[in-house]
């Protein structure tokens, strides 16, 4: 017994001694310069992506082949990660996390220079690209999203038409009335929460900015109570609450199925879902597979108007960045530039181009016709919001609080909406003080 204890102690001490952090690189401040001569750049690069589907069906390989026509000496390999955020977090403790990767949410903005090579100064990039301030640290840009996304309702045009609604509702009350009409006049489920898949609920946070049409909406989150009366999040959460409360959502949210919801919406069994422009192509594909008209998939803005116009926010998807430890930074940079500017990835996905001078995609023509005002949110307080969010464990970018909200609305959890949101606001503002010292 005695000898065993001693042995255990020695072993334990030996294990505790060596620092125990698996943290990688301290190199900081490298640049990934764009190559001058495409034919001379060489190296094998690994590109990490979340698009498992595109890697499996060979689409990414086709992009790589196109890329090789201009950069013949660069060999591109793809790695698709199904559970990107969780897996990349572990890998970023080492130096081996691909040459090109997507900036995960977990990395604090101020740590970007430790993990990624800079793509240039904000001054020079902002002239050409959208979303530069989302990845800017000390005047240098560290990432670039290949597409722009815009939150909104994906809806089935036919069902809404059958319910007698042809104009987009301009108020939340009008929207609810529309859903009610769908419930009465059609067999469709008016709204689908996708509660069980969890992440679709988080898209409700992106109502922020659309409601009040304020480009500084993110800064407001950092400085005040996000659920104050009349604030964007409160209006959005209030709408979701009312939808569920009035029985306009699916009957049993706890067993929903995301993959199945796509053909269901395409076929008109589901009328509406709050998602984003990125989802349009997936629903159209689902429509084609189900043998129904993909033209039925529509997209509408949040039902709120300021100065007589709808408002929608355009933001980046995952930003691509170059690993600061990559031995082939030029090749990696070449890939990002090519993928952003020339690959046609944005058009293939019916997405908004990251280039400032590019036209809006065809699917958003109704937005043009209706005169929807497109704004880009100022993200200078984005890092602060993320920090408050994590510290307070409120989780505006996590599914949990909206799941609670839905449970509250359908009576599976006791309490009132006002108390619930006031409680969140209290947690948020209390953390705000400790984080920012204000």
């Amino acid at each position: 017994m005695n000898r065993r204890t001693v042995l255990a102690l020695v072993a334990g001490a030996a294990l505790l001694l060596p620092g125990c952090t698996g943290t990688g690189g301290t190199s900081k401040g490298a640049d990934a310069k764009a190559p001058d001569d495409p034919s001379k750049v060489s190296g094998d690069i690994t590109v990490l992506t979340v698009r498992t589907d595109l890697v499996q069906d060979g689409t990414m390989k086709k992009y790589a082949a196109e890329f090789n026509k201009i950069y013949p000496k660069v060999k591109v390999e793809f790695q698709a990660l199904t559970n990107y955020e969780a897996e990349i977090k572990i890998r970023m403790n080492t130096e081996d996390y691909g040459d090109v990767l997507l900036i995960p949410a977990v990395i604090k903005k101020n740590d970007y220079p430790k993990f990624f090579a800079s793509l240039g100064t904000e001054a020079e990039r902002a002239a050409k690209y959208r979303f530069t301030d989302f990845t800017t640290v000390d005047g240098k840009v560290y990432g670039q999203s290949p597409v722009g996304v815009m939150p909104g309702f994906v809806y089935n045009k036919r069902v809404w038409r059958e319910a007698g609604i042809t104009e987009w509702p301009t108020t939340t009350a009008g929207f609810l009335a529309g859903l009610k009409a769908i419930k009465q006049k059609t067999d469709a489920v008016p709204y689908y929460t996708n509660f069980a898949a969890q992440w679709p609920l988080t898209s409700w946070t992106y109502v922020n900015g659309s409601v009040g049409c304020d480009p500084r909406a993110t800064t407001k989150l950092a400085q005040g109570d996000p659920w104050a009366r009349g604030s964007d999040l409160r209006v959005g959460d209030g709408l979701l609450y009312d939808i569920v409360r009035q029985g306009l959502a699916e009957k049993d949210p706890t067993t929903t199925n995301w993959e199945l919801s796509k053909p269901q919406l395409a076929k008109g069994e589901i009328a509406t879902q709050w998602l984003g422009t990125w989802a349009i192509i997936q629903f159209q594909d689902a429509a084609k597979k189900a043998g129904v008209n993909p033209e039925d998939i529509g997209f509408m803005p949040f039902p709120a108007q300021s100065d007589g116009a709808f408002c929608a926010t355009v933001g980046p998807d995952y930003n691509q960045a170059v690993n600061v430890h990559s031995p082939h930074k030029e090749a990696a940079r070449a890939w990002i530039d090519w993928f952003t500017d020339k690959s046609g990835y944005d058009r293939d996905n019916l997405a908004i181009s990251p280039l400032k001078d590019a036209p809006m995609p065809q699917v958003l023509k109704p937005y043009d016709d209706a005169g929807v005002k497109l704004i880009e949110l100022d993200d200078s307080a984005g890092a602060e919001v993320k920090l408050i969010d994590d510290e307070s464990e409120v989780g505006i970018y996590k599914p949990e609080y909206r799941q609670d909200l839905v449970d509250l609305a359908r009576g599976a959890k006791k309490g009132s909406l006002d108390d619930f949101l006031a409680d969140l606001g209290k947690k948020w503002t209390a953390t705000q003080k400790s984080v920012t010292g204000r």
Partner: protein
Amino acid sequence: MTHTTEKVPSEAAAPASEGTTPLPAPRRTRTWRVLTPWLFLLAPLALLITFTYAPIANMVAYSFTDWDGVSPELHYTGAENYTEIFTREDLFQVFFVSGYYLIASVIQIVAALYFATILSFQVRFRNFYKGVLFFPSLVNGVAIGFVFLYFFQDGGTFDTVLGLFGVHTDHAWLGTPFSANTSLAGVSVWRYLGMNFVLFLGAIQSIPGELYEASELDGATRWHQFRYIILPGIKPVLTLTVILSVSGSLSAFEIPYIMTGGATGTETFVIQTVKLAFQFNKTGLASAAAVVLLLIILLVTWVQRRLVPDDRVDLV
């Protein structure tokens, strides 16, 4: 590994030399004799230390820091994480959920014991039933989670089966905290029953057969046999199972995480810890929570061993 193979000839030679000379074995042989078991232990120990104890030591170290799981910088914060855990009651409320699993594990142990006893006697198709009962333990827990998600769906398998018996409940099985937790605990009974059953069956079969014959001569019924032969005979295994069940209930994770992700009041302590670590990036706090859970389980086990001491049973 090379050392162990080198070792074999000298070890084989040792008894022969002992046979001819009654003197103590030469120093080299003795050293080898002491070393041999350790050399054999080298591989498993290396694996054990690398994959079990080193991560635990790391976790304990992280629990004293504010690490976010990825940043190159981390600060030593002393016992701050532990203070936070013990001063925030919301972190402990999730243990109520464990109550459902605790009740379920009582049912599970009783059922497993019942089946093990029945099937240890001569029963028709007993091997078939053994297979049926053990089967769920072979299926991957994640797969079970998904299968039962369909099972509990509105109009899913469960509703269909109930419909066959004329019961149309129209109940959302995962819809309310009580119903959801009961359903999940039910799934975990289904999942782990087989394991307990096999443990009990093995223990029961190690009881010598003469005991039953002798007791039958004395006029004992099946109940008497169970009460006075089987139950005392498998007491060590029973105690072990209870301990495993209690610690399993406190750290329930797989099934609720896959099926509901902790929504609708089904969050267990481990799910909460995972959320802290991977959603809110509070790796330090989550590590501390994991350490606290470990300590709680050790404490519960210790109390249990105190209440039910594991004395040797002598049947004969």
